[in-house]
């Protein structure tokens, strides 16, 4: 492999597998391709799609996970988005939310801006960083067996936050665009959770 930061897994297939039979899962997506990937797997009122605020995804997930301890919150984001929120991994590690799972679709590149290499494409290991920070589990997933194990792990209880760096190919599938109205998707999720909508 020319670039060790790039994987062989197909991002759309990975996300579709993780969201198959999603049950009570709540999902927060990082801007760019992860937002399109989650939408392509099927729009759902339990999804909150970010279209900006780079670095926010895992921390929106933290606030949601702390408010709803009875639900598993899955953050689906990219390597560039998570790298911008690297300090947030420290905040999540000490907050210890057992119901928060972060999946980083890691292709080692900034796909939205012209496929420039990211830090992970230049050797940085996000799972090791999360493990050193104190995540309950932090793994790099490189093959389909790992994806199946991850899909299972999401449904199981944990003792603290988990992060999985899933090594995907560096390509840009056709965009699948969810609503861009942040108020609409906010109120849609709150209604889905039985909360008041203003």
């Amino acid at each position, binding site marked *: 492999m020319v670039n060790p930061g790039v994987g062989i897994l197909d991002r759309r297939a990975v996300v579709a597998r993780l969201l198959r039979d999603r049950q009570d899962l709540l999902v927060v997506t990082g801007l760019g391709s992860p937002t399109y990937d989650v939408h392509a797997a099927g729009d759902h009122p339990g999804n909150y799609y970010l279209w900006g*605020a780079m670095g926010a995804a895992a*921390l929106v997930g*933290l*606030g*949601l996970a*702390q*408010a709803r301890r009875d639900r598993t919150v899955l953050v689906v984001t990219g390597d560039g988005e998570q790298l911008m929120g690297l300090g947030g991994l420290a905040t999540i590690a000490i907050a210890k939310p057992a119901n928060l799972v972060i999946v980083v679709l890691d292709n080692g590149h900034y796909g939205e801006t012209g496929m420039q290499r990211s830090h992970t494409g230049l050797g940085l290991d996000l799972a090791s960083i999360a493990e050193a920070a104190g995540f309950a589990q932090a793994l790099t997933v490189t093959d389909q067996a790992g994806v199946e194990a991850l899909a299972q792990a999401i449904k199981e209880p944990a003792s603290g936050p988990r992060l999985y760096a899933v090594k995907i190919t560096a390509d840009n599938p056709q965009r699948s665009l969810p609503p861009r109205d942040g108020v609409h998707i906010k109120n849609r999720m*709150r209604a889905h959770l039985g909360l008041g909508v203003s």
Partner: protein
Amino acid sequence: MSKITVAASDSLEEADPLDWPNAIYRVLKQHDVRQMSYVPDAGHSRLIELFRKDPDVVANLLTSEEEGVAISAGAWLGGQRSVLLMQSSGVGNCINMLSLATIARFPLLMIVTMRGEWAEFNPWQVPMGLATEPALAAIGVRTLRADTPEDLVAIVGSAAVLAYGADQQIAVIISQRLLGVKQW
């Protein structure tokens, strides 16, 4: 769910005016704040301590202030109210993240202690002190400034209603004059 209580005006009836952290804490509790996030600041030390001791509030220590903007949004998605405490220098760290709160009209209540504006001995605090309120205004966050403890408690109560009731993004600015000169 929409428990809106305006009790700020009587919050200081028995209180020592210098005990504004306790008065603010009571106002925020009346508004059912369940999550609090912060980067430590001397001016907020009492309020941080009160929240950290409260078993009904989740307190998140942040590495940088913008993290709290995102946590507040997530808390609201899940039905909880949150408050974000920081020093004025932290406002500069928040600017792009505040687009999340403003574009999606997430209720946001920030309480900002000022540096760099009153009897400031550290020149490095001055630039961000000058920029704090203009920067917040530029990104669409309304600022409400308090110069006395009495005003502060009333303003926090008003800000809580504006944020959690009217989906506004509000920063309560605690003036450095109110906080007192930092002992060095």
